């Protein structure tokens, strides 16, 4: 910054930025790879003038100046081009000459990313490493009074039910009288949560679907994946693989024109229909696909013009109450597939979840309830929604389960938990904790993006640019130059790796608890936590 220019309020130095790029002139070969790969153009060619003062060693002789020019990179300090810390520059650098480093103090950039009155929006996660689920321990270990099971050799049944289950007496009565039985799917308790075609790149989507198909057809694991709100490619709708897919309908109804038209051509019913009323990352806000990502393919599938932002409304516009929602939407969705496909709502974690749940218990069509806690991830949301809105999943699920148990319907409406499962890498432990708190299964998205596709996001505001379609790994981009970086088959293989290792870890948790023949849903006597207040709140044991 020249000294004679005024300093604007948003004039920042590199020190003020969240991510500072450390560059080593000695190692740099000036290949330009880093500047080319940077998704936010934080780097530019730097031409540096350097002055060396040379002083003669003897008494005589005068000092002189040597001026030289050298080239390198310069980090932009305009907040619009602030480095996001993705580290792609390090990845492509042939000489390890460059690396983003997180600031050692609270950055100043955060106060300036609302220029033009635009509040910050981004993709990613809540950027908080705090996880109550990580603190829950499994304390009921079978010792001597009963033989512990062998996770490697004993027979296990890791399955859950998705769908409305009638109470035992009613089940038999309905079956005797040939009454309508609500459809029930027996599935794997770890579901890939709703990430839309549009939010994800075609390669990522295809990789996930291939992985799911392999798990089902080659390994016999009934893993299911939810589409998110954005429809489903017609080729998949008309294929036999549709049975592994949970179709999501949300307030924008994107993609449903295509889906409804495909119904007569469907070879298989979908696994289920999820009606999204809310998501954990941005409670009270609809889905948001920004114009950057709405290319022709996405536009065609969603039934919209290309190049426009697609904000879904926060609520379903035709509905004003849960009663109406249940009456209209759940039943019309059932009707669309001849009452053969379970339909369930998904809501954001909220202190009003019990009211929703209580209503669902009285409706024989509600096939379950999915609750997405505050730690859920997203492709795009306002920063404030992601960081501050929402309800933690553990107590929300626990309250709902205890409420069901109170009513005696804990086997009838399955609860599915999402949001923050595996956020610090402990996927199986977090899932098992939620199951024992009362969830019938869990949904995860971010973990899959990280493990199956190498998403660079972390809980420290790294990358988080899923919203603008610049994903440097090609996971959430619709730009072929970016998503071709992602190999479809390798994504599929990683999906399989994730589920196989999850399966082993889950068995390693439930086997010592003496459980193998049924999923330990609500087995809270096995849980402990070293926080007295949390223990009381969750009605589990306090252990120190």
């Amino acid at each position, binding site marked *: 910054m020249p000294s004679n220019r005024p300093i604007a309020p948003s004039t920042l130095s590199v020190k003020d930025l969240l991510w500072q790029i450390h560059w080593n002139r000695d190692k740099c070969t000036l290949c330009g790879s880093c500047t080319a790969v940077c998704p936010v153009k934080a780097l530019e060619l730097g031409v540096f003038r350097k002055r060396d003062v040379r002083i003669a060693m003897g008494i005589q002789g005068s000092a002189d100046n040597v001026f030289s020019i050298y080239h390198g990179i310069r980090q932009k300090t305009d907040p619009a081009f602030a480095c996001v810390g993705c580290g792609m520059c390090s990845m492509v650098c042939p000489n390890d000459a460059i690396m983003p480093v997180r600031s050692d103090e609270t950055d100043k950039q955060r106060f300036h990313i609302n220029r033009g009155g635009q509040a910050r929006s981004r993709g990613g996660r809540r950027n908080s490493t705090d996880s109550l689920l990580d603190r829950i321990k499994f304390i009921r270990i079978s010792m001597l*009074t009963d*033989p512990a099971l062998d996770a490697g050799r004993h027979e296990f049944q890791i399955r859950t039910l998705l769908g409305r289950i009638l109470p*035992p007496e009613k089940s*038999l009565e309905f079956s005797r009288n040939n009454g309508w039985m609500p459809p029930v799917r027996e599935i794997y308790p770890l579901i890939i949560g709703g990430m839309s075609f549009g939010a994800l790149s075609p390669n990522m989507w295809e990789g996930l679907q291939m992985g799911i198909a392999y798990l089902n057809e080659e390994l016999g694991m009934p893993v299911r994946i939810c589409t998110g709100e954005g429809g489903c490619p017609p080729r998949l709708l008309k294929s036999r693989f549709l049975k592994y897919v949970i179709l999501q309908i949300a307030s924008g109804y994107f993609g449903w024109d295509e889906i409804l038209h495909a119904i007569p051509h469907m070879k298989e019913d979908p696994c289920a229909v999820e009606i999204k009323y809310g998501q954990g990352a941005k409670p009270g806000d609809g889905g948001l696909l920004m114009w950057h990502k709405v290319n022709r393919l996405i536009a065609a599938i969603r039934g919209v013009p290309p190049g426009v932002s697609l904000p879904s409304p926060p609520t379903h516009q035709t509905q004003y109450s849960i009663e109406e929602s249940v009456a209209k939407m759940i039943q019309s969705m059932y009707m669309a597939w001849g009452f053969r496909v379970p339909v369930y709502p998904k809501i954001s974690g909220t202190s009003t979840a019990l009211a929703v749940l209580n209503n669902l218990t009285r409706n024989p069509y509600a096939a379950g309830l999915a609750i997405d806690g505050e730690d859920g991830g997203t492709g795009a949301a306002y920063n404030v929604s992601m960081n501050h809105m929402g309800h933690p999943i553990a107590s929300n699920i626990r309250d709902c389960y205890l409420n069901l148990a109170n009513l005696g319907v804990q086997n009838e409406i399955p609860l599915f938990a999402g949001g923050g499962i595996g956020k610090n890498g402990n996927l199986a432990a977090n899932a098992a904790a939620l199951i024992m708190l009362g969830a019938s299964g869990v949904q995860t998205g971010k973990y899959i993006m990280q493990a199956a596709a190498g998403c660079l996001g972390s809980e420290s505001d790294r990358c988080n640019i899923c919203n603008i379609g610049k994903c440097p790994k090609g996971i959430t981009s619709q730009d072929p130059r970016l998503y071709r970086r992602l190999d479809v088959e390798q994504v599929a293989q990683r999906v399989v790796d994730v589920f196989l290792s999850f399966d082993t870890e889950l068995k390693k948790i439930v086997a010592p608890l003496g459980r*193998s023949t049924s999923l330990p849903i609500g087995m*809270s006597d096995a849980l402990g936590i070293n926080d007295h207040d949390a223990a009381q709140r969750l009605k589990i044991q306090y252990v120190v």
Partner: protein
Amino acid sequence: MCRLFAITSRTPVSPMVAVNALDVMREGHDGSGVGLFMRDLGGPFKEIKDAPILSGIFSEQGLRRMDAFMVNAGFSILYDLAIRPDRIPPSGTPKRDCYLIRAYDYPVAWKALDTRDIRNRLTGIRLELRAMGQEKDDMIVYSFWPDVVMIKEIGDPMRVACMLGLDREELKARIIMAQGRQNTNYAINLYACHPFFIQGYSTMTNGENTAFHPIREFLETRGFAGYSGYQSDSEVFTHILHYSAERMGLSIEAYKHVITPLQDADLELHSDGSFLRLLKNSCRKLIIDGPNCVIGSLPDYSLFMVQDRKKLRPGVVGGKDGLYAFSSEICGLDAVIPDRDQSKDFQPMHLDTVLVGPDRQEVKICRQTDPLRHRLSA
């Protein structure tokens, strides 16, 4: 580990037979308690088969309070067998005033009631007495049911039996179940001692039910007063049996499908697959886990044994025409029926339910993978 022994005999036998079998198997249990269940009674009870019999332990004060309560409820005594031990109890056994086995005549007002009503009222009275006893710590009530006697006490089974003089003439039964050892998971409490009984169904278990808490929560919310007061993880086996038979009308063959359902591949091949899948889904909360051998007695006077899904606990059935026994160990069988054909002894595996009916002629074996002969109870 605890040890179980059950016998079904065409002619009434003394409970000492079962206690003796437990004594033979003493290496397998710690001698910390004994529980006895007797049904199809001989002796004086033979003539009053329909009269409800109250079994329990009472202090003198408890006896007076109970008497007042029963009189007030309209019951009159038909037969009384009060065992008042006169010697010092063996080490570990508390001193008790009275072990009571007393048959009552129904109140006049009950005569017009239908069977279901009477059964529920009997359960209600038992629960009321139990609550009264827990309040003042002066009575423990095990059962109040026609043709059923129960005795439970802390201490070595043989010593307790000798102290109580169980070899007495008036105490004989055609069906006897006996268990040695107190519950170990929780504080010693006679309500945690097997066998457990509810409305004609009784079971005892060797093992641990790791799914106890979710099952208990499920049963407690079925709207039936009898599903309460759980002190042992094994008590739910009895209540699941009662629930599946009485509330769902299922046969004993189907009981095994409730507690340890088949896995998917087997269900696909099963001729009753869709029915069994329905059962598995709707009774998911009743699936037991962990190692368990369950022996039980049904209202139709049959005796059965089922094993857990992995068959992790011992259990053998053997006998001869008119006399069959279920035992944790073969040495228990040998002690009681030495002259049986040992080659016909049967150790049920993970898919089996074995049943000896009231005719005491044969051991019936139902394999879970076979078609269900009876879905519903008779």
